[in-house]
């Protein structure tokens, strides 16, 4: 067993033991503990838990790699996924906490005095959360298979069992405290390699400052890192790293819509919103949104630095260098097919240029179970070779996972990164599964189907629902439907077009009616869903002002606002007690005692 594998087992084993210990300590016996952790979570802890809840395998593993290849346009994701917290803190979190119930559909159902509204909101919650969770389970499996050398499916099943133990036993309480531990794991796993690499390249150990500093050694010593990246990009025909809107035909409206949909979608995601139900007071809800964004920003401001360092490192170590001298990390990641090289000009050197080196992901030429090797010992590819000059394939996802190896860090750091990736994926999965479980067991079972259910029955149904949701998510993790990657736009688009506007109007207007809310939600969902399905699956055009499916949630949101506003004008004003409920929600006083059902 190599040192890296040994350390990986050590860290993963240790962190899993901690999660299970926490789950056992925070097991609960009532629905209030199960759904909202008894509303006793301190704001800083809730901030950390929200950070872990929010930052998924995609944030941890993929984001820096994405920015590294995109340069400036990576900004849309950075800002889209952080700016939403300002909306959440100002416009939603404190009022929903004052409302004092358990789920997002709970608020919608009560505010709009309608079981239909509750059911539409519950359906949105389940669909949005479920779309999201399938990708997480797959992420768990991939980390297991790459680092622990177990089968992807075995990895998914191990992940399912761990999540079931702490989500099933402790509900929101168990999830909250494991998420705090998972946040600590993932942030250390992200920052330690980032500090080391920043110090190595620029001599400044703080990556946020380092990537604006000068390079200490090598051909570009004394030059600013970002300038260097621009010069390199220019020399080899890439778009300059810091250049914004390089092509002249950028649809600025579309850029705006994408970022806005990500921000509003973030603020409308049920698994994020319910985290703010768990704190004791309204001002704790405001404060924990601040802490949440602080803890998220630790990673999100480091990611663009990691991206710039990774790009510089990759080009410096590989480009125009003979394949015979490639570093060990390149060969390690070549094994699972995440790096590949095809010698187009026969000079034995790796040329990294714009464009894809070949079509699709690497497919090796095999003979009798062995790689067919080229002249320089490189495994040959069966893919269709493109006719551009680029010879190198690098999977974006390895930018973070391989960064400790690229930076020459010790084996214990490499192992820690694996534990961090798992923490990111598991914490998000657990939060999503709880959102699904509580929407079904609380809003559909208890509030609609069996209104006389006892505390014990409700708790049992909640646990069964979490189990069912985990089993479904695991099944999709093992047999991923081809459309998983395609439907991520759905989660944000639908959250932006359905839940966010209705919750917002429910707080900021006393006049909006039940009929208006239902019409608005349906209009928003249907428009957004049909547009995305048409563009993503039926090959239709982006017919509305050229807006891509990633940004259409913004248009859906506007449509929802318009429809809700118009229908409100033609329907009877809400009953007096609803108007009083809205006024009650607006002032913090009196939130201490949670309203029980």
């Amino acid at each position, binding site marked *: 067993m190599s040192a890296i594998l040994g350390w990986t087992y050590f860290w993963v084993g240790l962190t899993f033991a901690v999660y299970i210990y926490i789950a056992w300590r925070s097991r609960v016996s009532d629905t209030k503990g199960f759904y909202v952790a008894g509303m006793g979570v301190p704001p800083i802890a809730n901030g950390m838990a929200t950070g872990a809840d929010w930052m998924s395998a995609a944030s941890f593993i993929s984001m820096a790699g994405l*920015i590294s290849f995109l340069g*400036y346009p*990576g*900004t849309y994701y*950075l*800002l889209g996924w*952080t*700016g939403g*917290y*300002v*909306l959440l*803190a*100002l*416009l939603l979190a*404190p009022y929903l906490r004052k409302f004092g119930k358990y789920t997002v559909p709970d608020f919608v159902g009560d505010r709009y005095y309608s079981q239909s509204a509750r059911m539409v909101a519950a359906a949105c919650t389940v669909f949005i959360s479920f779309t999201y969770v399938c990708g997480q389970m797959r992420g768990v499996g991939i980390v297991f298979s790459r680092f622990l050398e177990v089968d992807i499916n075995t990895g998914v099943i191990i992940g399912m069992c761990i999540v079931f133990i702490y989500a099933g036993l402790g509900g929101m309480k168990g999830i909250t405290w494991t998420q705090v531990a998972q946040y600590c794991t993932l942030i250390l796993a992200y920052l330690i390699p980032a500090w080391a690499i920043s110090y190595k390249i620029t001599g400044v150990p703080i990556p*946020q400052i380092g*990537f*604006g*500093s*000068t390079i200490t050694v090598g051909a570009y010593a004394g030059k*600013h*890192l*970002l*300038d260097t990246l621009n010069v390199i990009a220019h020399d080899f025909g890439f778009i300059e790293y*810091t*250049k*914004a*809107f390089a092509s002249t035909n950028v649809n*600025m409206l579309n*850029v*705006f819509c994408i*970022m806005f949909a990500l*921000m509003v979608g973030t603020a409308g995601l049920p698994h994020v919103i319910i985290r703010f139900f768990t704190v004791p*007071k*309204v*001002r704790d809800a*405001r*404060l924990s*949104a*601040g802490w949440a*964004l*602080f803890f998220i*920003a630790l990673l*999100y*401001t480091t990611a*663009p630095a990691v991206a710039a360092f990774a790009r510089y490192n990759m080009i410096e170590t590989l480009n125009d260098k003979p394949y015979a001298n490639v570093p060990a990390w390149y060969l390690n990641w070549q094994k699972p097919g995440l790096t590949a090289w095809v010698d187009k000009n026969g000079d034995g050197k790796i040329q990294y240029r714009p464009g894809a080196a070949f079509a699709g992901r690497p497919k090796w030429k095999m003979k009798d179970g062995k790689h067919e090797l080229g002249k320089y010992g490189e495994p040959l590819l069966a893919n269709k070779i493109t006719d551009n000059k680029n010879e190198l394939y690098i999977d974006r996802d390895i930018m973070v996972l391989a960064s400790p190896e690229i930076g020459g860090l010790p084996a214990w750091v490499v192992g820690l990164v694996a534990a961090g990736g798992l923490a990111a994926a598991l914490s998000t999965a657990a939060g999503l599964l709880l959102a699904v479980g509580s929407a079904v067991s609380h809003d559909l079972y208890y509030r609609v189907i069996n209104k006389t259910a006892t505390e014990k029955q409700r708790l049992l149904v909640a646990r069964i629902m979490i189990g069912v949701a985990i089993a479904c998510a695991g099944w999709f993790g093992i047999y991923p439907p081809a459309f998983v990657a395609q439907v991520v736009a759905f989660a944000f688009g639908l959250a932006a077009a359905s839940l966010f506007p209705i919750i917002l109007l429910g707080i900021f207007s006393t006049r909006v009616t039940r009929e208006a809310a239902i019409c608005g939600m349906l209009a928003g969902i249907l428009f957004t869903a049909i547009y995305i399905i048409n563009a993503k699956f039926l090959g239709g055009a982006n017919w509305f002002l050229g807006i891509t499916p990633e940004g259409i949630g913004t248009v859906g949101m506007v449509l929802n606002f318009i429809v809700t506003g118009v229908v409100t004008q033609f329907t009877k004003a809400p009953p007096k007690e609803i108007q009083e409920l809205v*006024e009650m929600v*607006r*002032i*913090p*006083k*009196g*939130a*201490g005692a949670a309203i029980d059902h």
Partner: protein
Amino acid sequence: MAESTKDMKAYWHRNLQIQFWLLLIWFIMGYVLSIFLVVPLNSIKMGGFPLGFWFAQQGAIYVFVVEIFVYCKLMRNLDREFNVDEG
């Protein structure tokens, strides 16, 4: 409820004002400086960073974090002023 309706109207109005100014800053940081004006701002250098690029990948996020804490502080003061604080 002890507080008069008029007081509550004033409280809500002040709350909306705070939100308006903070969201305006949010919009300027997130959209105006980071997206709409990024090209001209990039011709200004701040250390090794083109300024627009720095706003987009660092500065705006810092301001978002600070804004939420400022909001907490302003609302705490407002809650106390109108005696709707949770104590």
